[in-house]
């Protein structure tokens, strides 16, 4: 069947995609800058978590003669302060956002457009990071002044860290997005999300540095995605990883991004099937 209509010529694919990312990120920065108060609320609430862990472990380290499992107070401070940055990078378009998107009927609008859904979320949250990191800086200075972290990274560690935090962002985006698809089937997915977060807490180095965990937990963590979203980026800067370990870590992240992407695509295609047959 041929229909004779005037069609607009297309701009280049990659150029347009790049264009889309830049524009969306600018948009995100512009919107989020308007919500400084609420962004700070979020951040302060989030900072409380590592500060509590830090205080507890510092107390123990002091009690036990300066260190726990070889980690000194200063190293704990460095770990948990870098933690705050990694945590900020780790906030992604996850389950609660998917719930919002479906509940508020925003999905239909996105589906009408010729763009893969993941791009919207990756681009917007990536832009948001710039606002968040700018707002994080004074907090980091404050925490450093109080807790005296021991931190002397090499140039390579800094470079790997910069890649690793974006790698963590992508890994977590894929997995959280996949979990978010549950919202298409149930409005009570909260318990499942909580379970995911709890497992992540324990196996990622979010709750405590993995070094403090029993050996078998550390081994297990190596083969799961969680560590690569918290523990690895933090330790790439704070710890004493060899060059080989650093590069291997980046490769592991790349692998998990790939696996996560495949999972996301499978989950999304069945979610969309459900969405278009149920209608919302």
């Amino acid at each position: 069947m041929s229909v004779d209509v005037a069609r607009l010529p297309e701009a280049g694919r990659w150029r347009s995609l790049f264009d889309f990312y830049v524009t969306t990120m600018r948009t995100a920065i512009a919107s989020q800058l308007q919500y400084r108060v609420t962004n700070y609320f979020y951040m302060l609430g989030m900072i409380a978590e590592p500060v509590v862990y830090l205080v507890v472990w510092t107390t123990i380290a002091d009690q036990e003669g300066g260190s726990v499992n070889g980690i000194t107070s200063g190293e704990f401070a460095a770990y948990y302060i870098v933690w705050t940055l990694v945590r900020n990078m780790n906030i992604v378009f996850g389950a609660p956002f998917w719930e919002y998107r479906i509940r508020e009927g925003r999905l239909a609008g996105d589906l009408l457009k010729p763009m893969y859904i993941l791009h919207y979320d990756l681009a917007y949250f990536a832009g948001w990071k710039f606002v968040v990191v700018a707002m994080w800086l004074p907090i980091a200075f404050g925490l450093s002044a109080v807790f005296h972290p021991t931190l002397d990274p090499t140039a390579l560690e800094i470079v790997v860290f910069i890649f690793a935090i974006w790698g963590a962002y992508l890994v977590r985006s894929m997995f959280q997005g996949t979990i978010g698809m549950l919202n298409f089937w149930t409005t009570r997915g909260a318990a499942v999300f909580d379970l995911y977060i709890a497992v992540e807490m324990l196996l990622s180095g979010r709750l405590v540095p993995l070094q403090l965990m029993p050996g078998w937990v550390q081994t297990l963590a190596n083969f799961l995605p969680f560590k690569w979203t918290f523990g690895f980026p933090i330790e790439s800067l704070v710890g004493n990883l060899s060059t080989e370990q650093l590069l291997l870590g980046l490769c592991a992240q790349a692998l998990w991004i790939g696996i996560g992407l495949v999972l996301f695509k499978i989950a999304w295609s069945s979610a969309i099937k459900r969405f278009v047959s149920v209608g919302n």
Partner: protein
Amino acid sequence: MNALRVSWLFLKIGVINELQYRVNFFVQLLQSLIQVGTALIMLALVYSHTTELNGWSESELLSLIGVQVLLGGFIHTFIQPNMQRLMEDVQQGTLDYALTKPEDSQLLISVRMVQIWQVVEIASGLILLSVGLSGVQQSIGVVDAIAFGIALLIGGVLVYCFWLVITTGAFWIVRMENVLELFEGIYQTGRWPVTVYPGWLRYSVTFLVPIGFAVTVPAEALTSRLQWPTLVFAFVFGAAVFAFTRWFWHYGLRHYSGASA
């Protein structure tokens, strides 16, 4: 007393409403299990590296966590839903419905909502508390129990006041969505005795954000650490904070009415 009758009616309606969503009970149960599980693992980790934290043994700290979960359950059941509703009302301009009723405005906005399934959290707090206390050496006397009750009540009032003061801020700052994350984050500080925190932080979580105060004082009562002057001080402090909150609420309300007129 009319205030009590109004509160009771709202509670009844809220419960009837929530009973329609029974699946929430299982969801809540699972969430509580996860929460308690994570707390216990953290506790085990800490005590695998030390025998006491700032003078608190593992059992004593477990009791403290019990109090924190218990109070958290109370907050999630009665306080937080009301405060979130209040925030939404201010944002969407629907607060007027509440303000036009012939009843004390602060009472009305504080008792409208109840999330009854969150009582699961209260129950799990009680379980943690009793397990913790059974491991504590000395027995608990009647006096300790009474002191605990009073201290817990004061703690509840303090947390309520803190929430209301923050929420009243919505009259000035309309977008406050993340205040929930702020509170949840800060509330986690209550899981440890306030004495572990360095000076400036200890003062913050005691007086500025009275979470540590609200949790630690009742736990101290049960572990026979509490001194009577502290309890008296807590009472005076609670009353003062409540008076301030009431004043601040009315101040915010005047601002709100002025702005929307």
